[in-house]
């Protein structure tokens, strides 16, 4: 294959990094899908497979000073924000070596050192947290931003709408990312969202909103870059709607009777963000198939190692039940 000049807005190293992030999320989720079905994992898991381009395209603009508040479907956000994959796996397996010492599980993975304020089992509850982080960044003057991820369903929550108001009133450097995968659990957007436009909601609170194809890494990367830069420059909050598709159900075990026949097969074949990314970078002659395959192997090794270590690790001790629960000010 002829290698040509890179026509993309990011370097080749960054493209490889974006691919590694998306591939890691995908394999992490595929592995959980298998292990959960086997009964190895306690609690619930909500998989991010199919939505990787959103997390990767946004998080590539962030540093550890930037804080994100995630959702119940948070594994992809954690990985893209730099949380240790091994600690995440151990956490989901409920082990003492986990990111939160095995006491949080899938829906409460957090790592403040990476700016990951936590997945969140309460819908819409991440939005006020992101506003708080953005207020801190504004007061400290370090140009950090807060990112609130929210699903199409949770965007109907009062907390989310109040956060839009607060962010606009205080001109906070916060970005509300609506990851619209079309379903609030099993309820389609058309049935549950008045006016059906997240962009209009942003406009109603006096901030700009834009919609992008969330299955296209480059579309997300470009749009996220602009709204994040706007926030860092003092331009205030904005809303970014990523239209996307989830490969699996709302939670693992969901029979998905609400989805159309062949809907999932069709999107796996035609709207897979990783396949699209691979095709683009190879077509442009910037990255070779062998380079992608090398990353694929490394990622699979990492996931396998994470599971082996998670299974071998001890659970939290009974004495740890009340540690890490209360904070003294």
């Amino acid at each position: 294959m002829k290698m040509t000049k890179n026509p993309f807005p990011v370097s080749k190293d960054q493209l490889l990094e974006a691919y590694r992030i998306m591939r890691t999320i995908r394999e992490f989720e595929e592995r959980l899908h298998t292990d959960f079905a086997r009964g190895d994992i306690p609690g619930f898991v909500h998989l991010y497979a199919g939505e990787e381009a959103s997390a990767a395209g946004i998080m590539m603009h962030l540093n550890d000073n930037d804080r994100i508040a995630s959702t119940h479907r948070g594994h992809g956000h954690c990985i893209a924000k730099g949380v240790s994959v091994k600690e995440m796996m151990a956490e989901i397996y409920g082990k003492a070596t986990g990111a939160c010492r095995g006491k949080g599980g899938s829906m409460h993975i957090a790592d403040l050192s990476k700016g990951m304020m936590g997945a969140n089992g309460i819908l819409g509850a991440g939005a006020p947290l992101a506003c708080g982080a953005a207020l801190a960044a504004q007061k400290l003057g370090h140009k950090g931003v807060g990112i609130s991820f929210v699903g199409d369903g949770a965007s109907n929550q009062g907390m989310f709408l109040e956060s839009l108001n607060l962010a606009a009133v205080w001109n906070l450097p916060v970005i509300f990312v609506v990851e619209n995968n079309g379903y609030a659990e099993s309820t389609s957007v058309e049935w549950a969202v008045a006016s059906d436009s997240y962009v209009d909601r942003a406009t109603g609170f006096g901030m700009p909103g834009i919609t992008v194809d969330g299955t296209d890494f480059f579309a997300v990367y470009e749009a996220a870059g602009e709204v994040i830069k706007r926030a860092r420059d003092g331009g205030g909050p904005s809303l970014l709607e990523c239209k996307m598709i989830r490969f699996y159900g709302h939670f693992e075990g969901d029979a998905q009777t609400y989805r159309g026949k062949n809907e999932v097969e069709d999107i796996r074949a035609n709207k897979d963000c990783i396949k699209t990314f691979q095709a683009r970078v190879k077509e442009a002659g910037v990255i070779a198939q062998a380079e992608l395959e090398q990353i694929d192997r490394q990622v699979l090794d990492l996931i396998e190692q994470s599971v082996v270590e998670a299974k071998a690790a001890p659970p939290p001790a009974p004495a740890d039940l009340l540690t890490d629960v209360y904070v003294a000010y």
Partner: protein
Amino acid sequence: MSPVVGIIANPVSARDIRRVVSHAGNLQITDRANILLRILAGLAATGVHKVVMMPENAGIYGHLRRALARAINNGEARFPELQLLEMKVTGQAGDSATAARMMRNMDVGAIIVLGGDGTHRVVVSESGDIPIAGVSTGTNNAFPEMREPTITGLAVGLAVMGAVPASVAFVDNKRLEVAINGRQEVALVDVAIVREQFVGARAIWKPESLCELFVTFGAASSIGLSSIVGLLAPVERQAPFGRRVVFADPRHAPFRLSAPVAPGLIEEVGIERVETVPVDTPMSLTVGSGSIALDGEREITFSDSDRIHVTLRNTAFRTIDVPVCMSFAASGGLFLDSTKQAPTASLARSHQLGE
């Protein structure tokens, strides 16, 4: 049987990154529905009984339904019957193409389009010989003119009902055809060749990425890339030729121009040369790789191995000339109550007397 009018209002228009990078407007769903109601009122007033509309799931029809139900319950005949096309809604720009194709097959009298240049482009790619009337609601609006939608509804109604003859109501338009390895795309205003070899967020707002530009028309008062031609060597909509601009790095270009390349964005571009584009003459590109933007949005990536030609076509599709229709109606007294004597005679007399 009275003619049917088609309406395409795709809620995905005017949602892109230009709202952040250049402060472009966002016409809310509720306002789009209000525009449709004003169009429907105009159509009904001229005798149109039936309208078919593209279905969508973003709430436009939900607002319409309330207003239509209220009118029916009040016994008012303010609106025509509204029927939704039976088609799958994808929530993408492609819905506009599907709807346009179906409306052409139904042989509707005209299609009214809500949107900017991009939405109109998609409709025209499938609408064939059906006349188009544009209502500007998009971001980049060189093609549809800004006008109160009630008036567009009235003019379209007059045209399709035959109150204004076709020879007066309809005008021919040019378009650009882009052939890529045998596949064809169209543009109504401009085809821009840009350096980035990815579609990304689609909009173009970085002038340094421009390589060359083809336009069907360009007015000095236009917004968008065609304003570059408008400010250098304007071309009218009905002129039998177009223009091509080849760009250069502003630091070394023979001359530099500041132009409103997008709403809220006045940028300096370096100009190598400007040429006249004759009709029906396939033109090759000067660059080997990049992406092709149609009416302001990156749509297709290409590389050295692709065979690409751009051709300007005359009399490619028809539009409804709203001001001409309304002037014709006024001069013919079409809105006057025919049972009463026209007041114009006394007006003319008083004017003559200098009163």
